[in-house]
């Protein structure tokens, strides 16, 4: 009886560990790719953004139709995400099957405060902040791969 109970406990613990391990797997992966290099300081350039469903299930994303740039942050203070004025600005539910991606270009610009007139590289990652239904809660960004670009003065 005691042995059977112990086995049961082990099984439950095992399942819980399995669930915990599974739940830590990222659901989305964010990839960015620069469409040009070098870039010019304080001039707009475009990166492609791609949000991939890594899970084994269908997933949905809420994407702002106009203020999509505001769903992004950069980890480098010299990289600025170009904001856009909006009239119609709503959230759209994007359904992603396992392995599918949501792709959309994003405009950025670099503003290097050092006006030293020498080309230099800049490295940054972008973080995508998912929107949730109803009252928004702070959401941790999903960080992309790092990209390094040459910046001309």
């Amino acid at each position: 009886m005691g042995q059977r109970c112990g086995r049961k406990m082990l099984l439950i613990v095992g399942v819980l560990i399995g669930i915990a391990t599974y739940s830590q797997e990222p659901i989305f992966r964010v990839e960015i790719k620069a469409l040009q290099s070098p870039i010019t300081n304080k001039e707009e350039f475009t990166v492609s953004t791609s949000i991939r469903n890594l899970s084994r299930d269908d997933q949905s994303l809420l994407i702002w139709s106009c203020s999509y740039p505001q769903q992004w942050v950069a980890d480098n203070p010299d990289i600025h995400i170009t904001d856009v004025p909006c009239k119609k600005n709503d959230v759209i539910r994007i359904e992603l099957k396992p392995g599918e991606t949501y792709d959309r270009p994003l405009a950025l610009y670099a503003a290097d405060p050092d006006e030293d007139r020498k080309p230099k590289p800049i490295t940054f990652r972008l973080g995508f902040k998912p929107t949730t239904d109803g009252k928004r809660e702070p959401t941790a960004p999903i960080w992309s791969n790092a990209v390094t670009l040459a910046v001309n003065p």
Partner: protein
Amino acid sequence: MKHHLGITIVAAFAMSIGTAYAQCPAVGADSTCGTVITITDAGASVSNTGQGPYDGIDDTLVGVINNTSNLTISSLTLNSSLDIFGFDGDGIDTYGIPGNDMDDTGYGGPNAYFTGINGSQTSGTVDFIVPIPPRGGTVYFSLENSLGAATACSTIINNALATQASGANICATFTPNQSYTLSQAAQLCGFKNFDWIQQITVQYDPSEFYALNQGGAFDPMIQGPVQLTSHFVPWSDPPQGGGYLNGYGGSGAPDYSYPFYYDQTSELAGHEDGTQMPDCTLATSAGTTLTMHDAPADGCLPGGKDVGTAKCDNTSEPAGSYGGYLTHLAGVNTDGTAFDLGIGFAWTSNYNGTTGGVQIKKTNLGGDGNGTGGTTVTNVNQITNYQYPRDVGVIAINGIPTGSQSSQQTLLGGNQISASTSRLTYDGSTQTFDETVMITNISGSTINGPFQVVLASLTPGAVVTNQTGTFGGFPYLTVLGVSSLGPGQSAMVTVQFKTPASAVLNFVPITYAGTLS
């Protein structure tokens, strides 16, 4: 004043019913007429007496009273959303009422026969062998269908709108009454579906918004994107021709939602599935709630991020500027066109979408208080003028149209019609403040009327004493005597106001072609 009017209408209705009972004999299950058409010098009206179908199923005994002062009536052309001319052999003649040689349907009784029935049997002409004399002449006949028995669309959609202004966000829901689903309600209202339509009614200059104007769909006089200055209000949001130019009012792919707010194929379903929009707390339920959400941001508003840049012509919109919006529930017709139901709300936004100058430009989501300003709901209208099923309507008397045939209307954008107002003057004879609204066709082609001028966002408390009716909660006036406007042609309508002594009179004239009821 309103109370007085109510009493008058009730009294008139009671009188007409009382008189109406006289002109129909008892037929089958009916002791008198089920539906009464009353013709006066002012036009035609239709009322139901409460009598059910005379056959106990689906046929209606109809009486006509000619209360005109001197018009002899030889025919009435009727239309309906029902197949009232779909005769199936159980007219009043089969219930012992004498027929006539001109009528082979058995529905005409002693004095009526039917011509000009359309293919769907919803429209046709009732001809009278002996014309109905003025000043009280009557006649009766029968029509197919149980008129007045269907659930009126208005009972399902009136008072079903909820709105919420939440920071920079505006949210609304439409939930049909009587636990109908959106799909059921649409069907009962004669539509394929529901959607929203939104108009920009106020835009200050300089404007950083551009219509993409693909194929000249927004403004055929201009090639390429069109800067949406104050000159272009009102315009549909999003504008026809792909919506807004990327980076100048929109981002991402072109938006082909026009004339609706939500694209029928790619967006609408996401607003019927119960999803709650960000920062909106209005109750939603899948299949029974249609949501609406917007979070506009204008960087040229004072303090905005684009003030002083080329996007704002190196300056700023004046202090106190805002964007004005009018959002209405719309029916989606089977042919994909929009029908403005008038239920909706007016609102403003002065959200300027700035970031507060932090180094990393955007750390938050759209419309989250990252800038200054926000949305305000300024007017809500819960009641539609729309009548469906349209049991029976009189569209012509003696072959002359009554003007009540069409229930379609088209918003005329700022690129088609310009509307200007005169100075306010006081008219001692009417004790009203009068203002003339002049509408001018600024497009390159003729626009057919009739024309209606809606006084949107009229100063609360102001009363228009000569209004034709209300639409979307605001008074409107028909521009009389003008059936069309050629390019460059103008027409005028005088508006008579009574206002509180200290009120500053404000309104946004919005012009429609067609009728608003």
